[in-house]
């Protein structure tokens, strides 16, 4: 009996082992491939490598654009389990109507965004609701800590971090990095096990030529001018006249780069490079420099402007004030239209056009920002009978503020045309210089002598008797030129009687310029002249900027006895 039982038991054990062995063989050999794939699906998780855009710095290493980690709320519609009260609370946290929010969630499917890039405190509140079927994903969020400051230069990105404006757009390929995938292991409950692999890729950092403080000074003074003159818009550009490094570009109206997507079109316009205007008297630079370079006039050459007007192509162009005899220097100093036209007639239309092109008018400056336009100046063969007179005083041409500033910078630096630029360096994430734009490609366009002569004439503009006395600052001579031009009325297509563009462009200290700057105020109310509206803005910005840049006053009694420190 016992033997029989033992046989049965042994047989049962052997059969059981055989069954287990067969099953193991089935799992490990026969069905191996399918099961391995299934196991991999369950245990291996492929994650996207998070791409973080590079940081944007000002010239002194102050952050202008950086990244934050934000939580984005999504819903698994098939797993969603929430009552009406939960939905009401959730909708209030994401600033939505409950009904509208529910309408966004489909009945089927496993993924739908509820709200992306939430502030941390909102994410915490939602998490506390413990709603089944809701979860968060961490995403990179671009943050602009200086908000409105330099927003037209820096630009902004969209919800998916896609570049939309400014440096973000222009240098997008450098700021972003290649993403890719990383394989992570997870357990049966979906918990990720550490792989030690970095799941973040960082783009290159960009160092701008912009200085935060100078930018702020420019923006602050533009705000003041906008308020004082109830202007429609205003622009200011500050540049190193020797290198073309842009120190500040300010435009008004402006927008907060953190809310770039909701900014209106006119707020987003970088007028300094995307808008052109008829420059008015600041264009007399071309007549002045051309006449001097061609040796047609000298600073003391006398022009008879006593008639107060001059006939060009059957049209009489007049001076604002009546003068008698003016030297060429006084023609520029007092901004005499008649004197400029007489000089323009001497220079001739071919030369006027040639010098305008030489100074870069009608061509893009090549600034590294998106949206630059070229403006225009017609070829001499397309000029009408009145064109010579009109162009001599800055009408019938369209220039951008950056073009005008570059032209005056050529006077400041002794005759070289520079390439304006806003990026100084691109630095890789491991802190190596990837590209440097410090070497400027300047080329001479006029002789040093002509530049020096015209600079002295421009200095007289801000002195007693000049049109821009309001641009002068204590302690350092200023060289520059005012401009007042009528705008074209978009309805009548004629010059408007009440819409003007007031401008001032110049550089300081005149004999050893540290900065060149242009101020444009569009449609000022109350006053229209560049010397009254724009020149004081120039003065206020440069007064503070020179102090910030540590430029000594030239009239200071202690200037020659400056404290010397030996290293």
């Amino acid at each position, binding site marked *: 009996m016992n033997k029989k039982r033992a046989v049965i038991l042994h047989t049962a054990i052997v059969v059981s082992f055989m069954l287990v062995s067969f099953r193991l063989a089935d799992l490990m050999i026969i069905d191996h491939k399918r099961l391995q794939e299934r196991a991999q699906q369950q245990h291996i998780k492929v994650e996207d490598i998070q791409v973080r855009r590079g940081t944007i710095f000002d010239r002194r290493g*102050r*952050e202008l654009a*950086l*990244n*934050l*980690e934000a939580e984005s709320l999504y819903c698994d519609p098939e797993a969603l389990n929430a009552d009406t009260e939960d939905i009401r609370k959730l909708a209030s946290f994401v600033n939505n109507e409950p009904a509208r929010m529910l309408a966004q969630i489909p009945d089927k499917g496993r993924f739908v965004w509820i709200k992306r890039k939430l502030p*941390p405190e909102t994410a915490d509140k939602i998490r506390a609701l413990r709603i089944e079927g809701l979860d968060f994903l*961490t995403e990179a969020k671009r*943050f602009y*800590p*200086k*908000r409105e*400051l330099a927003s037209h230069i820096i630009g902004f990105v969209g919800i998916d971090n896609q570049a939309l404006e400014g440096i973000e757009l222009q240098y997008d390929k450098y700021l972003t990095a290649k993403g890719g995938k990383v394989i992570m*292991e997870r357990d049966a409950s979906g*918990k*990720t*096990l*550490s792989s*030690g692999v970095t799941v973040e890729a960082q783009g290159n950092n960009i160092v701008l030529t912009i200085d*935060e*403080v100078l930018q*702020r000074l420019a923006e*602050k003074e533009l705000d003041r001018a906008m308020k004082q003159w109830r202007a429609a818009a205003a622009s200011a550009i500050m540049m190193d006249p020797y290198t073309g490094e842009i120190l500040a570009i300010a435009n008004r109206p402006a927008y907060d780069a953190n809310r770039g997507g909701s900014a209106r079109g006119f707020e987003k316009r970088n007028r300094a490079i995307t808008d052109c205007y008829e420059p008015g008297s600041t264009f007399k630079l071309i007549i002045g420099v051309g006449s001097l370079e061609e040796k047609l006039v000298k600073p003391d050459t006398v022009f008879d402007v006593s008639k107060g007007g001059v006939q060009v192509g059957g049209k009489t162009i007049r001076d604002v004030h009546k003068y008698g005899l003016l030297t060429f220097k006084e023609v520029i100093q007092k901004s005499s239209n008649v004197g400029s036209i007489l000089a323009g007639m001497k220079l001739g239309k071919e030369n006027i056009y040639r010098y305008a092109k030489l100074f870069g008018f009608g061509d893009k400056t090549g600034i590294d920002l998106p949206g630059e336009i070229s403006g225009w100046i017609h070829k001499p063969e397309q000029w009408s009978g009145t064109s010579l007179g009109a162009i001599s005083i800055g009408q019938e041409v369209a220039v951008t503020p950056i073009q005008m500033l570059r032209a005056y910078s050529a006077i400041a630096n002794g005759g070289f045309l520079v390439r304006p630029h806003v990026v100084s360096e691109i630095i890789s994430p491991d802190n190596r210089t990837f590209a440097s734009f410090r070497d400027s490609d300047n080329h001479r366009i006029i002789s040093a002598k002509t530049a020096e002569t015209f600079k002295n004439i421009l200095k007289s503009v801000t002195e007693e008797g000049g049109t821009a006395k309001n641009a002068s600052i*204590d*302690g350092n001579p200023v060289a520059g030129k005012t401009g007042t031009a009528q705008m074209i009325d978009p309805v009548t297509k004629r010059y408007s009687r009440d819409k003007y563009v007031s401008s001032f462009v110049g550089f300081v200290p005149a004999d050893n310029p540290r900065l060149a700057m242009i101020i444009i105020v569009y449609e000022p109310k109350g006053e229209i002249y560049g010397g009254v509206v724009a020149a004081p803005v120039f003065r206020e910005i440069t*007064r*503070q900027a*020179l*102090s910030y840049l*540590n430029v*000594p*006053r030239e009239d*200071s009694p*202690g*200037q020659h006895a*400056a*404290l*010397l*420190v*030996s*290293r």
Partner: protein
Amino acid sequence: MSLAMLVLRPVMVILLFAGVFGLVYLRSNVTKLEYSLGELEKKKVHCLRDRKMLFAEKTSQLSFARLESSADDRDGFVLPDRLQVVHVSKDTRSLPRLASLKQKQ
């Protein structure tokens, strides 16, 4: 069967079991460590996120516009008159004292 075999057999069985359990123990410890590392990495990610937030906040607070407005409004600071500023310039030439020292050398 020799005496040695009689003694060795249970020892080998014990060693075998100890080895198997040792392997299982080690493997489970590795998994445990992976879990711990995973948790620590999560904490690290949270800390990094907080650091980024704090850094952004600091950068925002240190913006020139904010400093200027608080210095103006709250503390009554004004930009100095440029006449009151002493400009310190570096001079690479030797001053008399250094020159005399150099001569002695």
